């Protein structure tokens, strides 16, 4: 006759019937005196384990625990406060400086007009220094120069015409026309310089 293993005895002790063999073990114990004896010994051993004396520490650890806990709490508060302050400072900095960095400054109409006039005058000075009258140009370039100069003249004429407009509207139109003039002057300088380079070559 095969007796129960320790695992089966433990299953009987703990009333564990999760496996079929454990269920059979329950009926086996009822019929087997040797296994009943083993089960008794197991119960006694468990009871003795539970009856072992309680051990207690010779030290009172609470002062150390409380000191560590309070230090930890303090550190967590410092981290929290510094985190909030850092976030607030970053938000403030972004709102003050970041806006200027991320979004180009918006000039008012007068400033925009002055910028366009300055750019146009700078290009005219460049062209003057280049002295195109003394340069030899081919027919195609000369034709292109004429077209551009006609358009610049037209812009200058329109700039004269808008003098009678209401201030805000006049300013808006002046900015548009001066920007167009800058663009044409750029093209004129490009044409002259490129052609001259070709001739030099």
């Amino acid at each position, binding site marked *: 006759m095969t007796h129960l293993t*320790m695992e089966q005895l*433990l299953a009987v002790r703990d009333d564990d019937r999760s496996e079929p063999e454990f269920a059979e073990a329950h009926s086996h114990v009822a019929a087997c005196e040797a296994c009943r004896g083993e089960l008794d010994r197991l119960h006694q051993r468990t009871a003795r*384990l*539970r009856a072992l004396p309680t051990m207690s520490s010779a030290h009172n650890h*609470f002062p*150390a625990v409380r000191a560590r*806990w309070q230090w930890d709490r303090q550190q967590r508060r410092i981290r929290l406060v510094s985190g909030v302050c850092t976030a607030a400072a970053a938000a403030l900095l972004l709102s003050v400086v970041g806006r200027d960095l991320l979004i180009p400054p918006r000039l008012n109409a007068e400033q925009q007009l002055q910028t366009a006039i300055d750019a146009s005058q700078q290009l005219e000075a460049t062209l003057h220094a280049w002295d195109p009258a003394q340069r030899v140009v081919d027919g195609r370039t000369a034709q292109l120069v004429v077209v551009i100069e006609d358009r610049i003249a037209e812009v200058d004429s329109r700039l004269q015409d808008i003098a009678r407009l209401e201030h805000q509207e006049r300013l808006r139109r002046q900015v548009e026309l001066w920007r167009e003039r800058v663009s044409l002057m750029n093209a004129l300088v490009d044409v002259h310089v490129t052609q001259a380079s070709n001739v030099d070559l």
Partner: protein
Amino acid sequence: MDVLSPTETDAVVARARLGDPVALEALYRCYSTGVYNLARRICRTTEDADDVVQETFFEVCRSIRTYRGDGSIWGWIRSVASSKALMRLRRNKYRATDELNDELAPARGASTALRMDLESALGRLSDTARAVVWLHDVEGYTHEEIGSQMGRTASFSKSQLSRAHQRLRGWLGEEAVIA
């Protein structure tokens, strides 16, 4: 060790959850012996058990707000303690004692003079086996709970318990147990 009535316990826990150091100390006085005993049975040295007590109550102070009152406060503190004790075992990685234990274990029927008392026999078990025996047979944890705390399965816990009892039976001797 102080003993609190259920009403007192509820009041102390409520104050402890608000961070009252006096209430936390009352919990320490009430449950530190239980924690130490569990730690001492699982760990090998008094130093380790003392460390487990400190770690456990530090965790209690920090996390008592998360205790929702689903089970008893002792059940909650005990689960923190067993977790800390098992962590301590893993950290220390004591020598594997199973093979040594087999050699030291007296054969069945050997002289009773060589037989050990239960305390010594328990101490001779491997760390894992001893922890499983204590947590299951004394503290009343299920195999599922033990397996989960150890990062293993319930079957692992069952198998450890079975092997541990086989060894204890051999070391203690039948007569000594029956007597």
